[in-house]
């Protein structure tokens, strides 16, 4: 699989860090997993990421701070937010700020696949 299908998952929850990459690999993506935003930012492979799947409530940094940091480092990529807090207001704000999708946990594989398709469509457009 080429680096064109490279997905990074950032989530502080262990269940998600184990289950989501397994499904993504099953779907044919190359996956790296990070427990924190900082861990992702300092990794060598951040620059190869074509789609970022990010839990909104990360320890340390908030989602907005993280997105700003990505832009500053010229690392901005199509981002799918995931969260265990079903907050519709937050979802619409994130979508209006350019997020590809915001999925509420637990989400189905079809919802995930649709979001990934959208993210890689955007990726191809660039």
């Amino acid at each position, binding site marked *: 699989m080429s680096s064109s299908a490279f997905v990074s998952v950032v989530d502080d929850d262990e269940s998600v860090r184990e*289950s989501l990459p397994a499904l993504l690999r099953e779907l044919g993506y190359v996956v790296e997993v990070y427990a924190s935003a900082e861990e992702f930012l300092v990794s060598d492979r951040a620059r190869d990421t074509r789609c970022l799947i990010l839990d909104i*409530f990360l320890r340390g940094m*908030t989602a907005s701070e993280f997105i700003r940091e990505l832009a500053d480092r010229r690392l901005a990529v199509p981002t799918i937010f995931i969260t265990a*807090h*079903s907050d519709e207001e937050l979802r619409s704000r994130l979508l209006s700020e350019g997020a590809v999708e915001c999925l509420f946990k*637990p989400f189905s594989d079809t919802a995930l696949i649709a979001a990934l398709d959208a993210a890689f469509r955007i990726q191809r457009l660039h």
Partner: protein
Amino acid sequence: MVLAVTADRVSLQWISWCPATGELSGAEPLYHLLGIDDAGTRTLATLLSRVHPEDAAPLRAGLEQAGRGAGAIAVEFRLFATDRCVSHIQLAARGVCDSRGRPGVIGVVQDVSAQRECEQALAQAQADLAYAARVMSLGSLSASIAHEIKQPLSGIITNASTCLRMLAADPPDFAGARETARRTLRDGNRASDVITRLRALFTRKTADDETANLNELVQEALALAYGDLQCRRIAIGTQLTEELPCVRGDRIQLYQVVLNLVLNAADAMDSIEERPRRLMIRTEWEGVERVRLSVEDTGTGFAAHEARLFEPFFTTKSGGMGIGLAVSRTIIDRHGGRLWAMANEGPGATFCFCLPCECPSLPDPGFVPRDRARTLSLEQR
């Protein structure tokens, strides 16, 4: 006569017992109180047949002891009245000799049923209030609880999708599917643990004979409130003393106190923007027979409210009812401990409680409790 009237006014009744004949005697109100109105029934044997089985032997032993002249006795017993009600009767008596030198017992009895009923009603009201406060604090945690359940659920659903795909592949990936099923089980157990923890908090039962470890209570309270604290951008720190002895009491109520102190600290930091919101929980020895838990925040502090903090229905929060701290203090008092608040040297406040511990270790000759000097100086302020 004067004495008899006085005794009647305070509902005390004179009683005497003759060990030789087994006869009980006194005035009419005594017979009525003990349900031995008929002359032929005024014996200890008849009385004992109406006394609660658990109390009959101690009552007989007490009277016999007094009859032998072995000093004054005081016993309380439950008496089944004819209308099936239970009366609580107190007896104070001592041995005497009559004019012919025969040993006997004289004393007074008093119906303390009303007092016992009040005590039971008070205990019940306290338990009900503690339960109400607990359910309320769980209400405020509903988002956090949903978060704690959705995380493993998310794992379960993703794992199940992966597992199906691995089995449907050509050739099927059995090893991968097995591993994924194992992870599904683990996440299922994790979700179930969250529910078990919650069910315990929703129970009404009270138990005073359990043991509780403060460190475990801290970890459980933080697990439950974690999502909530994270949402409110509160950094959590703990300094838990290892091998802390257990305390005896009602585990759920003590858990409730810890959870309440954590949520109060979080509430106190909601409006803080100019400095980090930090929650620090410590457990440690207090002397050699007590253990202490403290919850420190960097919130608004309690400034002028110090004197009223623990008053029922006193609150500075818009959504609060002001019973959390009052209930917490009642619970800690009932466990033979103490709950207090102190202002931090920097911003915020620290709430502490100490409780007697189960198996006090022998004092080390050179043992000086950590932080002792600091605690004292803070309390004096």
